[in-house]
């Protein structure tokens, strides 16, 4: 009976492979920042509507992840870190990823529009468009500043969460955007320094390849310094408060100290201790973002007790 072996190519996808297409680790960051944006916004939405909205913002983020994996399958095949992703490993077909990404994009924007408001739904659609078309298809392979542009896509979720409640944009939501936007380049370039992905072979103009590692170290410091004013502006805004200000002071001082350590080292020193400072900086960058948004959450939850905020 040869019919059976004809379809047994041993690469049939599991449910989890489709989940992997949605980049669940990126989705967890989207869920957290969108949730903070939604909670700190002035006004009230029904808790079930809020839950649904965050779910569909996350799904929209996942859809853009699937579209990114569809378009970048050629790069992912070449690089060791990404070679085991569902498409390069042969578990999921490119057409399947494209179909899943498009279907989930449409579903998530439509459902967010129906559950919350059409401004939020359109904002999510714009975010997906920005990440997939502007970043993935256009600028990622064109400019060494690709991470800066990609960071913008990752910075939209708290603004969408804010828009779910308010139906618009305001200075506070723009400051939340600015914090993630300025944070992304130092966060990612630190990863580039110690991961040593083969971007040149994949044809992606990563800063470490085009301008060299010493220039990348300088870029990390410059962006870390430029990030601090936005953190303080956010702390001074109506959604900030004393807690956020103290958190911002401590975190930015530590973050800049880490960046100075990175810029003072050369490759030989970094090789010698296995990129210890770079890895520490990368780990701290995750805590930096989490604690900043956590502080905003604390501020909002203290308000009913007469504390929190200015």
């Amino acid at each position: 009976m040869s019919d059976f072996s004809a379809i047994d190519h041993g690469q049939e996808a599991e449910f989890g492979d489709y989940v992997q297409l949605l980049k669940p680790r990126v989705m967890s960051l989207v869920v957290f920042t969108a949730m903070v944006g939604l909670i700190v916004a002035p006004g009230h939405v029904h808790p079930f509507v809020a839950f649904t909205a965050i779910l569909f913002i996350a799904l929209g983020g996942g859809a853009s992840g699937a579209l990114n994996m569809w378009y970048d399958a050629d790069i992912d095949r070449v690089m060791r870190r990404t070679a085991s992703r569902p498409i390069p490993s042969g578990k999921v077909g490119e057409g399947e990823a494209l179909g899943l990404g498009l279907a989930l994009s449409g579903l998530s924007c439509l459902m967010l529009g129906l559950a919350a408001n059409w401004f939020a739904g359109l904002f999510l659609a714009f975010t997906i468009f920005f990440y997939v078309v502007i970043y993935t298809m256009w600028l990622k392979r064109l400019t060494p500043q690709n991470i800066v542009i990609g960071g913008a896509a990752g910075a939209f979720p708290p603004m969408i969460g804010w828009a779910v409640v308010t139906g618009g944009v305001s200075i506070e939501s723009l400051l939340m955007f600015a914090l993630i936007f300025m944070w992304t380049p130092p966060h990612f370039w630190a990863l580039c320094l110690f991961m040593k992905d083969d971007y040149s072979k994949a044809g992606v103009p990563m800063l470490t390849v085009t301008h060299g590692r010493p220039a990348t170290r300088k870029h990390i410091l410059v962006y870390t310094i430029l990030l601090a004013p936005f953190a303080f502006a956010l702390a001074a805004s109506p959604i900030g408060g004393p807690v956020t200000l103290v958190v911002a002071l401590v975190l930015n001082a530590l973050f800049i100290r880490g960046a100075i350590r990175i810029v003072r080292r050369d490759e030989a020193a970094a090789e010698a201790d296995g990129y210890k400072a770079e890895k520490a900086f990368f780990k701290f960058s995750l805590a930096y973002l989490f604690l900043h948004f956590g502080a905003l959450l604390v501020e909002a939850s203290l308000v009913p007790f007469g504390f929190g905020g200015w």
Partner: protein
Amino acid sequence: MAIRQDHEIHARRKGRNLGLGLVLGALVALIFGLSVVKISHLVEGKLPEEEVAQ
């Protein structure tokens, strides 16, 4: 003659179908819940948008 023996591929397919079934079930429950919330607001005499504006 029926093929009786299950291949490892069948287990993967079963998992996939089960997962998709659960996702679709969750989507139905979600839309139902959302409808209940929205419609009960209408019954109370105010649109959800009005509540946002408050």
